[in-house]
C-alpha cells in the first residue's frame, strides 16, 4: 500500500505535466523556426523577427499586461471589500454560486449585450437622452480594454471572494476583529493590518491563477476586448488562424513571449508583497489614521454590487435574447417572444450538449478520482509533498495557447488520435487543480479521531475511506464535482485543439456562434451552457440536504 501511495502522486503528475511539457517543446521548436511540415528547417530567428515586425505588437503586449493586472487587482479589491461585508453580516455568500457556475464565454456574450452602445443600459437611458439610434461610443471593445477588465472582473471577483471566505474560515477571524475593535481600530484598518497578512499565503495561488488567466484569455477578449490591436492572446489566436502558415511560427514565438509576460507579472506580484508588507507594517506601527479608507471601501463595495448586478443582468439578457424574435433598439424588451429559435436550433445544440455532458462527466469523475487518490495517499503515507502540490497548478498558470497546439502535434506523433478521449484527458488536467482546491482543506479538516475510532472498531484503511471519510465529505465532494463540471463546460481551446473540432461542445458552439450574425441562436446555446453548471451547483446543494436532512453536524459544513 505504501508503495502505491508513493507511486500515485507521481503517476498523476506525469499525466498532467507530460502533455504540457511535450506541448511546450513543440511550441518552442516552431518558435525556433523548425516546422518541417511547411519546409521550415530552422533553428533560426525568423519567427521572432516576424513577431517583432507585427504592427501593434507593443500595444498588444501593453494591453495584455494592463487588462490582466487591472482585472486581477480590481477583482482582489472587490473580493476584499465584499469579504468584509459578508463575514460581518454572515450572509450573501450564496449569491456567488450562479456567477461561479457561469462559463466565461456565456457571461461575456451576455455582458456584451448589457454594456454595448445598443445594449440594455443604453436602451434604459435612450428615452431620457432622446436617442433613436445607439450612440457611437466605445462602451465595449474600447481601445484601453476597460470593458474587458470589467467583464473579467465580473467573472473573477466571485472566485477570489470564495477563496477569501475559505481562507478566512481557517483563521480565528472573529476573535481577531473583536480584539482589534476593543483596541479602537477601525474595521478597514484591522482587515488591512491583521487579516490580510494572515490570509495572503492562502490567497497567493488563486490570485496567480486569475492573473495568468486574465492575461491570456482568448474568448472573453474576442467578445469584449479591443480589436485594433487586440490583446496579445487574440493576436496570437489570429496568427494560429492565418491562411499564411508561416504565421504558426510567429504565433509560437508569441506564445513564448506571453509565457514570459505571465511569469514576469506573477514574479513582480510576489516580489512586491515584501515592500508592501513592510510599508503596511510601518503604517500599522505608526498608528496613522486613514481618513480615505472608509470611503474607498464603500466605493469598492458599491463596485462589487455593480459587478454582481452586471453579471445577473447578463444572465437575464441571455435568456431573453434566446426567446426574442425581433428586438430592435431602443426597445427594453423584445417586440415578440417566441420559442421558435429554441425549436429550430435543437438539432444544432443536441449533439454538443451530449458531448459536453460526456466530457464534463468523465473529466470530473477522473479528476475527482485523482484528487481522492492523491489525498488518500497523503493520509496513508502521512506526509505532504509541497512541490508536487504546487506542480498540480502548473496547467492553470500557463497560457493555454502556448502549449495546446503543441499538445495536439505531440499526441498525433505519439499515435493518439484527437477525439473524445484526448479532450477528456485535457479537460481533466484543468479540472483536477480545482477539485484539489475544493477538496483538500475539507479533507484535512475531518476530525482524525473518527478514523482512530474506526480503526479501533476494526475498520481497515479501505473501509475507513469508503464508510467514513467519503460519506462525511459528501458535501465538499459534490461541491468539487460541481466546480469540476463548471470548469470542464467552460473549456474552449482544449476542446478545440484536442478534439480536432470533431467533439463540438456547447462552449465551442457558443464561441463559434458568437461570431455569427444571429445573436438569438448564440443566446440559446449560451443559456444551455450556463444552465449545466448551475444545475451541477444546485445538485451539490440539494443532494446532501436530502441525504443529510437528519444529520445536523454535516449540514453546516
Amino acid at each position, binding site marked *: 500500500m505504501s508503495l502505491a501511495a508513493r507511486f500515485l502522486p507521481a503517476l498523476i503528475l506525469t499525466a498532467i505535466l507530460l502533455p504540457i511539457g511535450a506541448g511546450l517543446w513543440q511550441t518552442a521548436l516552431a518558435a525556433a523556426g523548425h516546422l518541417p511540415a511547411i519546409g521550415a528547417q530552422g533553428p533560426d530567428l525568423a519567427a521572432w523577427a516576424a513577431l517583432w515586425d507585427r504592427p501593434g505588437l507593443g500595444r498588444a503586449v501593453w494591453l495584455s499586461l494592463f487588462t490582466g493586472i487591472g482585472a486581477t487587482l480590481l477583482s482582489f479589491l472587490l473580493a476584499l471589500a465584499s469579504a468584509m461585508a459578508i463575514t460581518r453580516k454572515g450572509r450573501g455568500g450564496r449569491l456567488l454560486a450562479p456567477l461561479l457556475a457561469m462559463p466565461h464565454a456565456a457571461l461575456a456574450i451576455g455582458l456584451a449585450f448589457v454594456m454595448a452602445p*445598443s445594449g440594455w443600459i443604453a436602451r434604459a437611458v435612450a428615452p431620457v437622452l432622446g436617442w433613436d*439610434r445607439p450612440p457611437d461610443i*466605445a462602451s465595449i471593445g474600447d481601445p484601453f480594454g476597460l470593458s474587458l477588465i470589467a467583464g473579467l472582473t465580473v467573472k473573477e471577483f466571485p472566485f477570489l471572494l470564495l477563496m477569501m471566505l475559505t481562507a478566512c474560515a481557517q483563521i480565528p477571524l472573529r476573535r481577531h476583529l473583536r480584539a482589534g475593535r476593543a483596541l479602537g481600530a477601525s474595521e478597514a484598518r484591522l482587515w488591512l493590518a491583521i487579516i490580510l497578512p494572515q490570509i495572503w499565503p492562502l490567497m497567493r495561488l488563486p490570485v496567480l491563477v486569475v492573473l495568468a488567466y486574465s492575461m491570456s484569455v482568448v474568448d472573453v477578449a*474576442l467578445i469584449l476586448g479591443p*480589436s485594433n490591436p487586440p490583446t496579445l492572446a487574440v493576436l496570437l489566436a489570429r496568427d494560429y488562424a492565418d*491562411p499564411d*502558415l508561416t504565421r504558426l511560427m510567429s504565433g509560437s514565438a508569441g506564445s513564448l513571449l506571453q509565457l514570459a509576460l505571465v511569469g514576469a507579472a506573477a514574479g513582480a506580484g510576489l516580489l512586491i508583497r515584501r515592500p508592501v508588507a513592510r510599508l503596511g507594517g510601518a503604517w500599522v506601527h505608526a498608528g496613522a489614521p486613514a481618513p480615505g479608507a472608509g470611503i474607498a471601501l464603500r466605493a469598492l463595495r458599491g463596485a462589487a454590487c455593480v459587478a454582481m448586478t452586471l453579471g445577473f443582468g447578463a444572465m437575464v439578457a441571455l435568456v431573453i435574447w434566446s426567446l426574442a424574435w425581433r428586438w430592435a433598439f431602443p426597445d427594453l424588451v423584445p417586440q415578440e417572444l417566441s420559442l421558435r429559435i429554441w425549436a429550430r436550433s435543437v438539432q444544432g445544440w443536441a449533439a454538443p450538449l451530449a458531448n459536453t455532458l460526456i466530457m464534463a462527466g468523465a473529466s470530473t469523475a477522473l479528476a475527482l478520482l485523482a484528487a481522492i487518490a492523491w489525498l488518500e495517499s497523503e493520509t496513508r503515507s502521512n506526509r505532504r509533498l509541497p512541490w508536487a502540490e504546487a506542480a498540480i497548478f502548473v496547467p492553470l498558470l500557463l497560457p493555454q495557447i502556448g502549449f495546446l497546439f503543441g499538445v495536439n*502535434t505531440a499526441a498525433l506523433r505519439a499515435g493518439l488520435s484527437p477525439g473524445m478521449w484526448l479532450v477528456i484527458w485535457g479537460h481533466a488536467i484543468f479540472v483536477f487543480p480545482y477539485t484539489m482546491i475544493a477538496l483538500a482543506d475539507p479533507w484535512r479538516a475531518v476530525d482524525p479521531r473518527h478514523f482512530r475510532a474506526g480503526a479501533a472498531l476494526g475498520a481497515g484503511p479501505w473501509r475507513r475511506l469508503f464508510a467514513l471519510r467519503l460519506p462525511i465529505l459528501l458535501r465538499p465532494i459534490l461541491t468539487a464535482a460541481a466546480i469540476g463540471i463548471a470548469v470542464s463546460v467552460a473549456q474552449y481551446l482544449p476542446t478545440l485543439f484536442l478534439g480536432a473540432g*470533431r467533439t463540438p461542445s456547447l462552449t465551442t458552439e457558443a464561441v463559434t456562434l458568437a461570431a455569427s450574425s*444571429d445573436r438569438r441562436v448564440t443566446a440559446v446555446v449560451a443559456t444551455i451552457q450556463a444552465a449545466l453548471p448551475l444545475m451541477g451547483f444546485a445538485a451539490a446543494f440539494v443532494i446532501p440536504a436530502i441525504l443529510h436532512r437528519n444529520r445536523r453536524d454535516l449540514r453546516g459544513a
Partner: protein
Amino acid sequence: MHRRSLLALALAALATPAMADWTDTLQAARGQTVYWNAWGGDQRTNDFIRWVGQQTEERFGVEVVHVKLTDTAEAVTRVLSEKSAGRTEGGSVDLIWINGPNFLSMKEQDLLHGPFAGDLPNARFLDLSEGAPAALDFTTPVDGMESAWRLARFVFIRDADRVPEPPVDMAGFVDWAAANPGRMTHPDPANFMGATFLKQALLELAPDPRALKAPVTDAAYAAQTAPLWDWYDALRPNLWRGGEAFPENESVQQQLLADGEIDIAMSFDPAAAAAQVEQGLLPETARVFVPDAGSIGNVSFVAIPFNAANREGAEVVADFLLAPETQARMQNIEVLGSFSVLDPERLDAEAQARFEALPTAPALPTLAELGPTLPEPHASWMTRLTEDWADRHTR
C-alpha cells in the same frame, strides 16, 4: 445486396471508364462518415449542410458531420499538424469549405488530394474552361484540386429607411460617411470580408486595374494603391468609432446593423438581407446594393486534404453539391439563397425549370440588379494590402 452488386456490375460493363471509376468510388464511400470542416457562423448554411448530410446518407450511405469552424484556417492548421506528425493517412479532416488564400496555402504546401474535381459526374454542368469563374480561385488556377459549390458576390446591406440613396460607387462612400459620421464601418482587414472591402475599392480606384491580375511587385503596388489610400484616409475619420476600432468579421458587423449601431453592412451572400428579414434579424426595409460598376465575385469551393480518411465519401459529397437539384435548393431564398455555380447553358430543360420556379422576395436582388461580377485581384495583392493596412492603421 446481390441485386445492388449486380446492378453495379451491369453499370460498370456499360459505362465509360470514368463512370466505372465513379461506381468504385460510390461503393467505397458507402458507410463512410465525412467530416466536413466548414465555417459555422451562418445558421442557414449550417442547416443546409445538415440537409446535404441527410440526403447523401439516404442516397449513397454517406454520413456528413459538420465540423464548425470560426475560421477556415483552423482546418488548414489541423491538416498541417497532422502532416507535421507524419500522419499521411487517416486524417481527421475529409472535406473543407475553402477558397482564396487558404486554398493557395494548402495547394502550395501539398496538403490537398487531387485533381479530382473534373472527374465528378456532375462537373459536366460546370464551365471549367480556362479562366472561367469555377476554374479560378483568386486568379490561381484550380487545377481540379477543389470543386465549386456556391457563388459568393460581395454586396452591401442597408436599411432603406435610413439609407434611402446609397452611394453608387466606392468613391461615393467618402461623401456618404461625411454626411453620416459614425454610421458605417468595415470588418478588420485581417478578416476576409474586411480585405474584400479594400479590394473592391482598389478595383475601382486603381489607375490600371489590369495590373492587379499579375502577382504584386513593389512598383505596381505603389502605383496602383496610392489613390486607394487617399480615398481611405478621407473615409476613415467618419467611420464608426472614428475609424479606430473595427468589427472582427462580417457577422459582428451585421449584428451592429441589426442593433442599429451602423446603417451599412457587408456580405458575400446576395440573399443575406432577404434571409435576415425572413428570420426577424433585420427590419423589413433591409436591402442589398452593389456599386453600379459591379462587385467582386468569387466561387466557394470544397477541397479534400491529402490524408483524408474518407476521401471517397468526400468526393461523393462534393459531387452531390453540384447536382442541379442541390444547386436549385441552395438558390431558394427560403433555404439558403446562394446563387448557383452551374452554367445555365449546360442544364437540361427540367433543371432550368427548377431554377425558374424558385420563389422571390422583395429583399432579394435579381441577377440584373447585381450588375457585373468583378474578378478577384491576384491573391498576393490581398496579403500585401492587409499588411499595409495593419502597418498604417494599427496603433
